[in-house]
Every structure is written in structure tokens, then in C-alpha cells.
């Protein structure tokens, strides 16, 4: 992993068109500004982690539709 030290207001550029700027540093928190082309997806890493976990918990173990239909007969 590449590790760079940056101060408030400084930024880094990734592959020419993505800029990541340190907006503020306070109370152990870093506020980051990201400027990237529309086709680049940016999200907090825990968001992806949560979705991976939810998908893993949603894998079908049995014929659940059968179970659903038994429980939701009109």
C-alpha cells in the first residue's frame, strides 16, 4: 500500500482525473473531498461490506418460496 502524508487543504491525484482532498482534520476524524468522473463509483468501504454480508445471509438454503407460499396463502 502506498502511504502519503497530507496536511489540511492538500490533495492527491489518482490516474490524472480523480482528486482526493483533505478538507478538515478534527477530533480524530478526517473529512475528505473526492472529485471524480461520473463513471467512477465512490462509497464508504463499510457500505460494500454491509451489502456483502447481507448477500451472504440471503443465500437460499431450502425451498423458501414453498415456505413463503404456505405462510401467505390468501
Amino acid at each position: 500500500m502506498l502511504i502519503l502524508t497530507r496536511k489540511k487543504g492538500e490533495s492527491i491525484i489518482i490516474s490524472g482525473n480523480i482528486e482526493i482532498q483533505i478538507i478538515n482534520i478534527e477530533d480524530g476524524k478526517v473529512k475528505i473531498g473526492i472529485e471524480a468522473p461520473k463513471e467512477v463509483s465512490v462509497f464508504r468501504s463499510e457500505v460494500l461490506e454491509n451489502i456483502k454480508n447481507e448477500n451472504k445471509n440471503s443465500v437460499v438454503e431450502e425451498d423458501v418460496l414453498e415456505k413463503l407460499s404456505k405462510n401467505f396463502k390468501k
Partner: protein
Amino acid sequence: MQLSTKHIGNVEYKEENIIFFKQGIPGFENYTKFIIVLSGNEELPFHYLQSIEEANLAFVITNPFIFEPDYDFEIPQEIVESMEIQNPENLSVYAIVNIPENVVDTTMNLAAPVLVNNANNKGCQAILVDREDIKHKVFKNVSQQGEK
């Protein structure tokens, strides 16, 4: 072609119905080919999203608009491009459903809908940055279905 699964037995499918998830599904990045197996019951709007590479990998999906008519989101631009979405009418939207022991507590993931472009059979699970409703209760608005 035929697939032998543990949860729904043998499944017949046609090559032209295979949906290609280039990046897999988060958590299962290695599996890229899926089919949709319909419930076969018109009153039951739930279906299987079944991997054809791993017979034991399947999810339950539903049309989220049936339960949440106001559900609305903007498709991230990078997905419009990677899935080559030219006409939104060709797009199907599904939510992955989580069915717990007590089925009344069934939830669907509205923060990461599954999109399928029926024009080219490309699919993906879109991660919507501005939504957090990974566990959205399915049956809260459908009172007649909540009773046995």
C-alpha cells in the same frame, strides 16, 4: 440445459436466458452467470436468482415496486455505461430478499437493487450511495398477506 440444485431440485434453462454479472454479486464475485427461476405461482411475486456455475448459490428476489410503489433511485452513471442501458424500458429491477425463520419478518435490500438489462442480458447489483435500507421490511404494507 439442466441444473441440479439442493433447494429446488432440477432446473431447466435456456442459454439465451443466462444473465451475465460481469463483477459477480458482492460477496460472490467469482460467479457471473445467473438465471431467474420464476416462482410458478402468480400470486407469489418472489423468484430465484440462481447461479448456473454453483448449483447451491441462489437468492430470492422480488419486484420491489409491488411492496414499495414509491421506491425510486437514480442509476449510477458507471452502471448505465457498463450495462449499456439505452432504453430504461428494457430494465428490470429486483431486490434481494432475506427470509428469516419467521417469514413475517422478511426483508428486502433496497440499498442495492439487482438490475437486469433485458436488451443484452447484462446484470449487476447496484450499490446506491445515498440509501441505507439494506433491511427493508417487505410485508408491512401488505396486511392481507401477514395473516395466516
